């Protein structure tokens, strides 16, 4: 080193250091969300990594402590925004459990259709993003058209697409329109061939297999200890699914299988999600059939008969005395909820989405805690990727289906 560089002072020990520190994120195009990982690299191999989360923390649990139940639904939208209807339904189911509301079968089936559509759109994004990260953009662009169709169905039912705020305590805000059913039929007719083609692109694709097999693997035991749920746990070989273990919304009436993997690596996670999409399609078909079997007045039911909790339709509020009274009572906070503690969970897009609600009477929850599956399993990321290549860590991240909104609440 020549004389002129004497003024440069390097941090102590940096010359002897054998590893490189690499900062991936918080906003990196390959992480698909706000994730920061400070990685120690030996060449291209990861020695250790430290994850930082919380960049989009919005204090939902605190805000919820001031809001009445029906105003918390839009907060749940913004958890896992790839499948917000599942979050909404999970929240409605929690409230219904606390309030002791029984929903009619038709409402349950309509909910199941929406939830399974949401699951498909969630898995679709996750799997096609895994494709993008392994270098195959085609699949991603190809399936977007069908996510669009799913969003159009949401739009028909509730008026919005991404943050859906769908349904109410006791059911839906309006009945499904004919257009919604037509779009659903179109989806059921066209989607299987698209999914088949999507599978053809990836499942036995040599490049894709080489990139994903063995990467980010976890054993069943470790996965359970890390609190994995959903497709990530099933890919490791544990057949735990909330829909089967604790059936909600009449999932018990349906015939479907729970795919499980074996190795818990990126490839198995991909396969499990793909198979789950087929199963979801199957469930939607069954539910649609069951809905068509309702006759007469039953075929028009779209909410439970619980005027004290169900916000009445606006046109009724303007024209009917009773609806006006209930509307006033609900909006002005004159309907108290019972005291109690409930924990209720649904099978969300990426695992068991739980709601722990404590009510001390009154209008707003005393405490509301969201069990966010991705916050819990993201802590395993360091273990999953260490020893592997940096480029595999990117694939692992997308294959875990990490959603920053859900993680940070």
């Amino acid at each position, binding site marked *: 080193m020549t004389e002129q560089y004497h003024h440069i002072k390097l941090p102590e020990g940096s010359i002897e250091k054998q590893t490189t520190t690499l900062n991936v994120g918080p906003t990196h195009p390959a992480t698909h969300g706000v994730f920061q990982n400070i990685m120690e690299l030996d060449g291209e191999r990861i020695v250790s990594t430290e994850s930082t989360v919380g960049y989009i923390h919005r204090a939902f649990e*605190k805000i919820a402590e001031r809001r009445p139940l029906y105003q918390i639904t839009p907060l749940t939208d913004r958890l896992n925004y790839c499948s917000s209807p599942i979050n909404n339904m999970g929240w409605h189911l929690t409230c219904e459990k606390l309030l002791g509301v029984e929903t009619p079968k038709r409402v349950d089936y309509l909910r199941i259709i929406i939830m399974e559509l949401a699951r498909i759109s969630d898995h679709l994004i996750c799997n096609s993003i895994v494709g993008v990260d392994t270098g195959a953009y085609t699949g991603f662009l190809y399936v977007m058209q069908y996510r669009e169709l799913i969003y159009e169905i949401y739009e028909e039912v509730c008026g919005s697409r991404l943050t859906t705020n769908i349904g109410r305590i006791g059911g839906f805000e309006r009945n499904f329109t004919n257009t919604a059913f037509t779009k659903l039929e179109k989806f059921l007719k066209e989607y299987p061939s698209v999914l088949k083609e999507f599978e053809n692109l990836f499942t036995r694709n040599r490049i894709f297999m080489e990139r994903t097999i063995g990467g980010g693997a976890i054993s069943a035991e470790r996965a359970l200890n890390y609190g994995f749920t959903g497709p990530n746990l099933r890919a490791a070989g544990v057949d735990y699914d909330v829909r089967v273990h604790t059936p909600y919304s009449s999932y018990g009436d349906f015939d479907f299988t729970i795919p499980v993997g074996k190795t818990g690596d990126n490839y198995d996670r991909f396969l499990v999600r793909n198979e789950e999409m087929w199963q979801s399609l199957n469930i939607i078909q069954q539910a649609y059939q069951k809905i068509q079997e309702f006759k007469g007045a039953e075929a028009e039911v779209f909410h439970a008969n619980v005027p004290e909790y169900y916000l009445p339709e606006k046109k009724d509020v303007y024209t009917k005395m009773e609806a006006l009274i209930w509307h006033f009572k609900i909006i002005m906070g004159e309907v108290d909820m019972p005291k109690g503690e409930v924990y209720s969970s649904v099978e969300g897009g990426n695992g068991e989405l739980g709601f722990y609600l404590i009510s001390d009477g009154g209008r707003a929850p005393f405490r509301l805690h969201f069990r966010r599956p991705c916050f819990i399993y993201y802590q395993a990321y360091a273990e999953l990727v260490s020893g592997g290549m940096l480029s595999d860590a990117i694939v692992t991240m997308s294959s875990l289906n990490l959603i920053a909104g859900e993680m940070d609440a």
Partner: protein
Amino acid sequence: MALTNEKIQQRLTEKFGEGFFTFEESYGMLDMEAPKEHNLKVLQFLFDDAELNFKFLTDLCAVNYPDLPGRELAVVYHLHNLQDNVRIRFKVFTDITAPDIYTASKLFSAANWMERETYDFYGVNFVGHPNLKRVLNVDEMDYFPMRKEYPLEDQTRVDKDDDMFGR
């Protein structure tokens, strides 16, 4: 034979003695409370016992009860026995001035971040935790925002002048 709430109560009372736990049942879920010094012993027993077999930590969070002197903070564990498909809720209460609770992160890797989150929002000090620092909030924060003593912003306040978002 399937595991029932009565059976869990019986098994736990056999092991820890009468009056150790306070049992309750709400919405079908067994809700039990134990002295906070023994939280790890209870969790370990629930984990190890072949009959109880509560090997899955579903959720861990805290609750602040400002009206209960000496028991202001509760740490709530939701445990799941996946084989028999039974869930239980286990609580320990602690004084807010000395919120020390033994960490469960050795038993459940899942508890690591959940305890960090609980520390972050309620200031529960998990004794023995490998890396107890804030996880969702900024490191510089010097209070625990989910405690009831910090109310949400008054929505009618007018003293704030915000050009960007208007108020």
